[in-house]
């Protein structure tokens, strides 16, 4: 019995081409490649680590998140939690996105210090490992794969977060007079070759939330929506939004609310 082996893809991603070298064709090619990669998304590696962390007894209080953390669907339950957030949590008296909520559980239930988590909340370009919180978010997000976004807009407090986020997106300031909407307020716009989703439309908002948390092939890092918001403000020439703050939740609520009713595909893969 002779076994024939076909090497399908040994993926060596080095996206070193300058922006100017990219053409529309290159974009289409990349899109095909990205779609193929979705079937073997390295994000799964982070999911596995996140699952271990979720179930492990950790922190000064030696409890697991699985035994203590309610993401809105019952203690320990991750199914649908990601697509049904941001939501209002009475015990924290705040509307929170999933990352902020997990951070809250880690500090309140496990006894971790917020400052320790916030010191380095995102994976740097050359870090070998993602922070625990990123792995946890990726695991929780995997529990909403192929479910529709269903942020509870009827909840007055969630609605307030949405409307405040909408107003924040229109706020112009800084040396270049930019707001979020300068780039993300109209259809069919690009920065260089990068297509800019119009976050005020259902289609654009979906593009804003789909694929996060996502594995970024440039640098091989796993990043969350909290990171995406952070880096947008960098490019907007604004100061930095504090990690896991209400400001970031409001913006995520604005996008998720506009994306409501559309399918979330789980942790994604990004250029």
């Amino acid at each position: 019995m002779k076994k024939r082996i076909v090497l399908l893809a040994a993926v060596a991603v080095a996206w070193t081409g300058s922006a100017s070298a990219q053409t529309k064709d290159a974009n289409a090619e990349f899109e095909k490649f990205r779609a193929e990669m979705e079937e073997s998304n390295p994000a799964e590696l982070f999911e596995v680590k996140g699952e271990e962390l979720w179930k492990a007894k950790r922190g000064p209080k030696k409890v697991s998140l699985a035994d203590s953390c309610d993401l809105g669907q019952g203690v320990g339950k991750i199914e649908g939690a990601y697509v049904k957030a941001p939501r209002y949590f009475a015990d924290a008296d705040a509307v929170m996105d999933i990352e902020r909520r997990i951070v809250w559980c880690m500090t309140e239930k496990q006894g971790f210090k917020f400052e320790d988590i916030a010191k380095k909340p995102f994976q740097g370009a050359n870090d070998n490992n993602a922070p625990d919180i990123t792995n946890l978010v990726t695991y929780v997000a995997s529990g909403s794969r192929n479910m529709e976004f269903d942020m509870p807009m009827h909840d007055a407090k969630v609605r307030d977060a949405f409307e405040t986020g909408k107003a924040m997106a229109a706020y112009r300031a800084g040396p270049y007079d930019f707001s979020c909407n300068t780039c993300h307020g109209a259809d069919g716009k690009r920065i260089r070759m990068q297509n800019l989703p119009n976050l005020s439309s259902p289609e654009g908002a979906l593009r804003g939330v789909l694929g996060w948390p996502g594995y970024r092939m440039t640098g091989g890092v796993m990043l969350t929506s909290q990171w995406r918001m952070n880096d947008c403000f960098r490019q907007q020439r604004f100061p930095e939004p504090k990690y896991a703050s209400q400001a970031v939740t409001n913006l995520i609520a604005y996008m998720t609310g506009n994306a409501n009713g559309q399918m979330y595909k789980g942790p994604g893969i990004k250029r």
Partner: protein
Amino acid sequence: MADPMKIRASMKGDAAEVRILMSHAMETGQRKDAAGNTVPAHFIQTITIDVGGKRVVDGQIGTAVARNPVFGFKIKGAKAGDKVVVNWVDNKGDKRTDEATVA
């Protein structure tokens, strides 16, 4: 200790499609850190795959492969229920073995 692999194996027609995700830094030895020091090379060197007790892949890779490598194979002659065992060894002698069953 190295992180676990993620292995998926399922029959597609007469061949088993095996997809493997490995968690590894795959440092090329060419990169410098923020302080300007060269980051030492650290990469997977050998990969073996056994299906149903038979070695079907015995290969070598190098620094051209990106961090967190993804591999896909189509293996003829395999059948549902076969055990897939994947092993890698890197240039520092770190290793990892994980397994899955063909679905």
